C-alpha cells in the first residue's frame, strides 16, 4: 500500500518520519546514558546536587530537547504500531488523538517542572 497517502504521520513522508525517529533516538540515547552516569556517579545524592543539576540553564534546555524528542519519537512509534494493528480508521484516529493529547500534557508538564522550581 505504498501509494496510500496518510495525514496522521508526523513528517508527511516515510523518509521524514524515519529521519526524525533516528535524530530523536540519538538525542534520547545520549541523554539517557549521561543522566545514568551522573546518578550512578553520585550515590546517596543530596537534594542540592540534584536541584543544582536541573537548575543549570543548559540542563533545562537539554532536558526540554529530550522531552521534545520523546514527543517526536513516540509519535512515529505509536503511529507505526497503531497503523499496523488497528485497521479501522475511527478507533485508530481516536487512539492516535489520545496519544497526541497525552504527549501535549507531558510537554506542558515538563516545561512547568523545568522552569517552575
Amino acid at each position, binding site marked *: 500500500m505504498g501509494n496510500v497517502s496518510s495525514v496522521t504521520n508526523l513528517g508527511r513522508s516515510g523518509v521524514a518520519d524515519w529521519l526524525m525517529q533516528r535524530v530523536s533516538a540519538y538525542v534520547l540515547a545520549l541523554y539517557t546514558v549521561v543522566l545514568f552516569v551522573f546518578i550512578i556517579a553520585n550515590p546517596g545524592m543530596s*537534594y542540592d546536587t*540534584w536541584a543544582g543539576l*536541573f537548575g543549570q540553564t543548559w540542563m533545562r534546555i537539554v532536558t526540554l530537547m529530550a522531552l521534545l524528542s*520523546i514527543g517526536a519519537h*513516540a509519535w512515529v*512509534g505509536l503511529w507505526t*504500531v497503531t497503523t499496523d494493528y488497528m485497521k479501522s480508521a475511527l478507533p485508530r484516529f481516536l487512539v492516535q488523538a489520545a496519544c497526541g493529547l497525552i504527549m501535549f500534557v*507531558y510537554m506542558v508538564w515538563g516545561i512547568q*517542572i523545568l522552569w517552575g522550581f
Partner: protein
Amino acid sequence: MNSKRPVNLDLGKFHFPLPAITSILHRVSGIIMFVGVAFMLYGLDLSLSGEEGYGHVSELLSGFFAKLIIWGILSALLYHLVAGIRHLLMDMGIGEELESGLVAAKVTLAIAIILIVLAGVWVWAM
C-alpha cells in the same frame, strides 16, 4: 485458487523467529515507556519541589511497589535502548543478513537481560 495447496493451521507448530520477538519487545517496551513518562515526570516534579519533596521521593523508592514500577520502566528503557542501538547499527548496514540478524537478535537479548538484572540489583540496593 489451488485447493490442493498444503495447509498448516497447527498453531503449535508456528513460532516467531527470534528477530521477530526482539522486534515485538521493542514495540512493547516503547509503549510501556510512553506510560512510564508520567511516573518519571511525577518523580522529577516531586524531587525538584524542595528538600521535603526530594526526601519524599527517596522514601517512595524504598517501597516495594515503587521499586517494582521503577524497575519495570528501567527494564523497558534498557531493552528499548539496546534494541534501538541495534537498529542504528542496521542503518549502517551491520547485522542485516539472515545469519548476522539472528546473531544480532541474540546479542540484543543477552545484553538487555544482563542490564535489566543489574538494574534490578541497583534498584533494590537503593
